[in-house]
């Protein structure tokens, strides 16, 4: 290096140059080309990848995929207002989609495939449509329970067994739709006051709150807890991988999530986005997620074992409340959770 390069002026110039290069290089160019679609996905990472792969295969369009938990995804969409980044939001509890729609963050689109989705599983204005569902369940570790000398919990009250203190894993409802669904269910099951009392007792059994809704099953798989509160498909997938876990749908009531898909307002690639929606709502689209090994329930009425069928035949003791009610109580419940449980 010659002395001139070491002078402060040259150094400053180097700094500015580096800054420009870096910002330029790492800027997300976004889907600037015509045959790309940008998807913000709030389902399990493997399912997201399976969806993207299936869509690409079908349409020839590349998919730029970013995976974020549902509430973080909603935050991202809010921040992206006026700076459209994504075309599609796929996956995650419909409660968030309702909020997003109310804030005008979604672009209504009625796909030809919409007809196969029952009314109760989609937005009447066409802002979003439910494309998969999962039942809330316990994922238990029989060896773990045996070591604790505890019975397999079959009801929500069984979770309050003193032997299970510190052995229950669940996500924080503040970060996870799964956990919020479980929380909301208790209010539906027991009423507001008794429900909160129950929740206080239940949360007393929890080891620690995970961030992600898919984490509790892994906590149980790694023997750090004996029972996970989760959606059944995640537990089934772990079992299919060879782990010694069992899915138990509580006798005294369960609920389900509806995972949705929507076009985002100001989507840069409107046409590609609509094609994606058509795919996501199709039977092929709703089945493609299963390539990941996680089998979520389809919402289309023409897919065997679809949600409407399951609800009608009463195999699961579904309680649950209308989506609108859940959305309404969200802020208050989460506020209660923050004040009374977390702190």
């Amino acid at each position, binding site marked *: 290096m010659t002395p001139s390069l070491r002078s402060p002026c040259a*150094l400053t110039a180097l*700094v500015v140059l580096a800054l420009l290069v870096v910002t330029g290089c790492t800027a*997300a160019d976004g889907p600037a080309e015509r045959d790309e679609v940008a998807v913000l996905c709030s389902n399990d990472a493997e399912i997201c990848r399976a969806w993207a792969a299936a869509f690409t295969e079908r349409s020839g369009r590349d998919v730029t995929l970013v995976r974020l938990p549902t509430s973080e995804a909603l935050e*991202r969409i809010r921040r992206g207002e006026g700076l459209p980044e994504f075309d599609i939001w796929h996956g995650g509890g419909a409660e968030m989609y309702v909020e997003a729609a109310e804030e005008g963050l979604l672009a209504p689109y009625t796909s030809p495939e919409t007809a196969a989705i029952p009314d109760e599983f989609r937005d009447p204005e066409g802002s979003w449509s439910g494309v998969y569902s999962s039942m809330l369940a316990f994922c238990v570790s029989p060896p773990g329970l045996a070591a604790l000398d505890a019975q397999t919990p079959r009801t929500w009250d069984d979770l309050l067994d003193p032997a299970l203190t510190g052995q229950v894993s669940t996500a924080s409802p503040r970060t996870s739709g799964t956990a919020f669904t479980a929380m909301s269910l208790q209010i539906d099951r027991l009423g507001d006051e008794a429900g909160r009392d129950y929740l206080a007792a239940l949360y007393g059994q929890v*080891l620690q709150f*995970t*961030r*992600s809704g898919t984490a509790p099953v892994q906590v149980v798989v790694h023997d750090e807890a004996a029972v996970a509160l989760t959606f059944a498909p995640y537990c089934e997938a772990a079992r299919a991988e060879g782990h010694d876990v069992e899915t138990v749908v509580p006798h005294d009531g369960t609920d389900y999530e509806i995972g949705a898909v929507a076009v985002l307002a100001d989507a840069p690639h409107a046409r590609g986005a609509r094609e994606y929606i058509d795919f996501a709502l199709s039977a092929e689209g709703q089945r493609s997620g299963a390539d990941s090994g996680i089998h979520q329930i389809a919402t289309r009425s023409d897919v065997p074992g679809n949600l409407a069928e399951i609800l009608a035949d009463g195999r699961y003791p579904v309680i649950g409340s209308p989506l609108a009610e859940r959305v309404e109580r969200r802020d208050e419940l989460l506020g209660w959770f923050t004040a009374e449980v977390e*702190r």
Partner: protein
Amino acid sequence: MTERGTRLMARAALVPVGAGALILVGWPVVRMATQAFAALATASTPGLGRTAAVSTGLSLTVTVLATVLGLALALTARTLPIRPRRLFDAVIGALLLVPPYTVAAAVVAVGGRGGRFAAVLPDVYGLPGMVLAMVVAHLPIAYLVIRVAWRVVDPHLVEMARVHGARAGEVFRLVLLPPLRAPLGVTAALMFVSTLSDPSIPAVLRGRVPTLAHTAYIEVIAWGGEGTASLIAVLLALPVLPLLLVLWRRPEPSLLVTRWLGRGASPTLALPSSPLVNACRALSVLVLALVLVLMLTAGTSMARAQVALVTPAMRAVIISTLGYALVALLIAAPLGVLTAWASQRAGERVARGADFLQVTLLLMPATTLGIAFFLAYGLETPTPWGDLPALVGGASLGSGAVALLVAFVAPAVPLVHLAVRAGQQRTPQALQETARVLGAGRRRLALQLVLPRAGALVAATAAAVAARNIVSVVPVVFLSTPDAPMVASFALDLLDRASFEQTFALTGIIAVLVTAVGAAVAAASAAVVGRRGSL
């Protein structure tokens, strides 16, 4: 150029840097502070008092324990011959390459419900586990600071004390303790702040115990109020204020950086045999055994893992983090050198002010910085001259690259600045005067006298900066997005899912890379500043 001209130019050089710092750090901190006061005024932060009390108690305990154990280890090391002492340094120093969350994961691997020694150990979730992990993670800091501070200890002083009948306790009080007062005071304060503001160990081991840092982390990523996050960020910065006050009144760099005495091992200290020395030795053996158990358990759990330890996503994260860390170093190093040069030329008052601001930036908890930046630049900022773009998050300018680079650069610039300033002061006055009498101008003085002496120090600092950027948790976890994945966020995701083995594998790869990168950066810096021969 005349003296006056140089001074003006130096001051002018500091202006854009200062403006940048104001926009990127000053404004976010001010905004965060106002939000914090607003939250306090509306009392919208339930339960935070209890959380703060628990966190403070936890940090105090960890600080005391880490300091005591660091003392015991350093004392034992100093009484050993060179080779075993180097082994000590290597084992404890290696912990610096292990991020705190990995220490927490190792604690779970040892004592968690599925841990190797679960049957004989109490539950690690909650305060016991957090204390253990935090102590182990912060031990190297206390140990190394004490080791460096004790380089100035004259072994004759120990001998003199002993020939006058001093027992071990008096030797410790009269010979070993005095050089520690300032550095240990500062280090303890910094450890307190660091343990208080680390969200990663609580993320793994908190159980149901709320801590300030982890609460702030959740507030930032989850449903909730920005008010609580800002209030916590301000609380975390409060313990730094008394330290800053002390440093403002006593600006000697020696308060922060003990005089570096150069190469060579210090002579072994022959301390009188006593219960104190024996206790230190016993504690040292215990600590080393514990560290060994943690390391071995991590290793064996990787060996027994039934999943792939290294995934494509992990590889992408490592490359992304390395890239950002190195780019940040390329920005921070010249900036730091520039500000140090400009400070020296711009006059004493400006120099003192610049040094102080740099120290403030260095000491500010990274959590506070991260939260402040997130809150200020998560959305577009309206100004009278137009909107400042959002800088945080995937939807922002550069997909969040700017935020991450600022997060890396902000604490790195002060490190380089202070290292260069310390190097400038290392050249003895007599040598400089002799050189000038012999006809050496300022430039030659700088290149042939100051730079070689400061070179080693700056090279080491550059390596440390690069290493730290790669390993650091905060403020990265507040600012990273899937578009710009960072090792720390990726690791926290892994740990959320109890994927300990993969975390260990990630740490191992990072440790090797950090060592290689650190060594390469040190060598490159040394080559650039170089030994050009002395006058």
